[in-house]
């Protein structure tokens, strides 16, 4: 191949343009990281801050995931902790009841394989990995009823693993909590 000794002015100019482009690209990507970080801080949208373990074999024998302790618990400080488990092929409780205008913490784990959990139309989204406890803070503003599918393949019955969540008025929830210590909307 011949290398011609024409002026390289054009090629030099091209390389300059390319460097400018690269600089701009780095700045755009940096901007996106900054916006994402800002969003995490501003919206408090962060993944769970600690890793916790739970043995899927013994969830039903003791600890916070025994069936009588599952559901929504109104804490002394007015917050609500929702404990539930995922298993082939249902969530327990299969209908979760939460109040509006209340800080809510979801605490969940799997009793067998990997499951997923999302609430339609929200940013609430978790993986359930057996052996570990997943947790997430949330809050709801308006009463509604939403679907809560398992979103990770958990074997052949996965298509039937749908739960529901009912968000009800805070006052109604408090009245119910006065009568029962663990609430759900399982009929």
């Amino acid at each position: 191949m011949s290398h011609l000794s024409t002026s390289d002015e054009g090629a030099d100019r091209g390389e300059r343009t390319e460097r400018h482009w690269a600089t701009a690209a780095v700045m755009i990507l940096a901007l996106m990281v900054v916006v994402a970080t800002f969003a995490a801080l501003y919206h408090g949208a962060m993944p769970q801050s600690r890793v916790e373990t739970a043995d899927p074999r013994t969830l039903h024998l003791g600890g916070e995931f025994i069936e009588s302790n599952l559901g929504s618990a109104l804490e002394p400080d007015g917050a609500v902790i929702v404990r539930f488990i995922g298993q082939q092929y249902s969530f327990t409780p299969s209908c979760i009841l939460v109040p509006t205008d209340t800080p809510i913490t979801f605490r969940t784990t799997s009793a067998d394989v990997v499951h997923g959990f999302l609430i339609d139309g929200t940013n609430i989204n978790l993986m359930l990995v057996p052996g570990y406890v997943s947790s997430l803070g949330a809050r709801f503003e308006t009463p509604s009823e939403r679907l809560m599918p398992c979103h990770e393949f958990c074997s052949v019955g996965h298509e039937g693993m749908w739960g529901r969540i009912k968000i009800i008025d805070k006052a109604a929830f408090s009245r119910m909590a006065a009568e029962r210590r663990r609430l759900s909307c399982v009929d």
Partner: protein
Amino acid sequence: MIRERIASLRNPWFTASIGITVAIALVAAVVGFVWLPLQHPGERFKGVWDAICSASGLVRNAASSAQIVRADYLTTSVEIEPQMLGGASAESIGRGATLALRCTMCHGARGLSQADTPNLAGQYPVTIYKELVDFKTGARGSAVMAPLVADLSDADMRDLAAYYAYLPRVSVPQPSAGEPPRIVASGAPLRGIAPCGACHGEVDSKASAAWLEGQPAIYLRTQLEAFSTGARHNDIGEQMRNIVRRMTADEIAAASAFYAARQ
């Protein structure tokens, strides 16, 4: 040509690439391990080191200060491992056969019932073992079974499970026994009902789920209704209760009739 040394501080490619990578990693680490965790809503870390440990993923189980609500009924105490009770020995099956002599009145000489009691021949061993334990502890209530299992040891129950699992099933399932009702074949997804066969063996088997084909219709129906009302509650994590609660009476009847007819 002199061979250029790459791993040298005088090589700008070397210093720049490593320098930039380290700088990015450091900034990201400070933000990700210190700043963001300290700002985490609903988490109060005791200083920087505490935040770093937590953000790095060290296991830190929450202190169980929360009060745990206990049930006013008994639940199963059996720990299920999917691989448990596999490969029973001939001795175990033999001991099981002897122990099973006391069961023949209701469950038949070869595990095939003449009454409306369940057939046990060919049942999964984990299922038989778990139900025996639950009868013994009272997690599954039965006036008939409770006295019969009262003096069985853990080894006895494993032997019984081995023996019944070893016996041949009622017959080979006939696909011609009619199309399964929709609730059996497909469940009802948005009611949270998976196809029955996903756990009970036609599609896949889940440890401790029972083999249902050929069981008496009245038995199946009674059990489903008991799960539905919560009268029976020895299913781990409410697996069956979750499903049956959302089934209609007609669906319960159809599913029971279908499985009873499959033989």
